[in-house]
């Protein structure tokens, strides 16, 4: 379970998060949505421990990540997978090396198993046979799918998706949405996605939170969201 308690984060004079409280249960498929620049990606980075909150605490299965040592945090991170907004593939490595980097660095898999892991996950994301290509040879959608294969190769319990469909054409975006749904339903992985693409949010999410002016404005199911009287929420939905 992931729990954020009174989390504050600022960059210079820009207060991005102003006391966020949020709980994400195991097996949840949570989508955090909000306008661009509202702090959605910052929330994901705080959950991963890539950023530290100015105030407040973040708990993963009861452990406060701000109190963990570097080695404990690295250990905890191996339970996560993260799909970055721009895929964040390593330019100098092949697709195979990108997908298996985490495994080869942790030394917990033989070379043969790593090859099999890459093959299996690339096949899952529909990119079988691309092992020896470089990221520069792939389209934006393909890069995101390789990023997802890389996250899956770590066999994560929790996957964080940062704007999974942003910048993709509708067909590629739908492929990514289908993959996220498949992972959610087949593997029962806890997922947290941040997006401003409401169509994608409704497809991949079961629970929704709206981030507005540094706070969680709404937290509930699709049905609760549709029946809400909150004008800010209604405005956001009607504009997207």
């Amino acid at each position, binding site marked *: 379970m992931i729990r954020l308690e009174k989390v504050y984060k600022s960059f210079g004079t820009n207060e991005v998060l102003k006391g966020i409280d949020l709980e994400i249960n195991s097996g949840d498929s949570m989508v955090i949505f909000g306008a661009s620049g509202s702090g959605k990606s910052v929330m994901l980075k705080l959950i991963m421990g890539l950023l530290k909150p100015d105030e407040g605490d973040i708990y993963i299965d009861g452990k406060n990540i701000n109190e963990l040592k570097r080695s404990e945090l690295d250990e905890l991170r191996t339970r996560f997978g993260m799909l970055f907004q721009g895929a964040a*593939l390593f330019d100098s490595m092949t697709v195979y090396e990108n997908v298996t980097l985490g495994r080869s660095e942790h030394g917990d898999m033989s070379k043969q198993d790593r090859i099999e892991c890459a093959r299996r996950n690339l096949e899952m994301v529909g990119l079988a046979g691309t092992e020896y290509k470089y990221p520069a040879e792939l389209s934006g959608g393909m890069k995101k799918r390789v990023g997802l294969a890389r996250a899956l190769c770590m066999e994560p319990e929790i996957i964080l998706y940062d704007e999974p469909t942003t910048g993709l054409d509708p067909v590629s975006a739908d492929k990514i949405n289908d993959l996220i749904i498949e992972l959610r339903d087949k593997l029962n992985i806890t997922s947290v996605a941040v997006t401003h693409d409401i169509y994608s949010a409704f497809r991949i999410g079961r629970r929704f939170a709206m981030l507005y002016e540094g706070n969680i404005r709404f937290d509930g199911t699709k049905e609760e969201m549709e029946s809400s009287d909150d004008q800010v929420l209604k405005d956001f939905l009607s504009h997207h």
Partner: protein
Amino acid sequence: MRKLIESLGRILIAFVADIGGLFIMIWGIILSVPTIFKRIRLIFEQMLMMGVRSLPLVILTSVFTGSVTAWQAAYQFKGLVPLEWLGLTVAKTVFIELGPVLTSLVLAGRVGASIAAELGTMRVTEQIDALESMGINPVGYLVMPRLVAGMIMVPVLVMFANIIAILGGMVVAVMLVNISYETFTDSIKSYVYIRDVVSGLQKSVGFGAIIALMGCYNGFNAKGGAEGVGLATTRAVVLASVLILVSDYIMATILFNV
């Protein structure tokens, strides 16, 4: 007045934050030393990039450094100092000062900029975050191999630069100043001590560390997009160059008693 104090305060805070950040990075490197054997492949890759690929530039710079040193020394000796001392002057100047310092300044431009641009791009495209998200320590994976490679390859390049510069100086002395080969080399053999060569190489180990650290630190802390990477690259080269010159003076006072 208030604005002036505010901006001075901001500069001071940024300076202290940079010093703190640099020490945190150095501490991270020390902690990752036990993984050095796991990183041998990355260290060799960096040694190839920093060393072998910088060799043509270093050779070109040192040929002219040696040549101009011989020519200028001959000009200044005229009527004051016997030209038999030309070889000694060129060799001592190159071994102690010009070889290490000029080579390191050239490498600060080539290698320091390249490290800062590469890591800066990795930072702004979230590749460094991606490493962390997989539980890989980016300081151990990216910084430590570059630092080790810098501390090994800069002295190696300085050795090459010293030899090439002295050969360049000798060609000018023999062909243009009309000193015999024997006269030029005899003064080197008689009065250049092993201590002169070693102290220059000792300095270049420090310069190698400065170039790699400045490249890594500024690249790691790049912000924004292409503009941020550009700024980080410029800062890396400027800071490395300034620190090379400052530390050169400090090391000279420690290594050479007057």
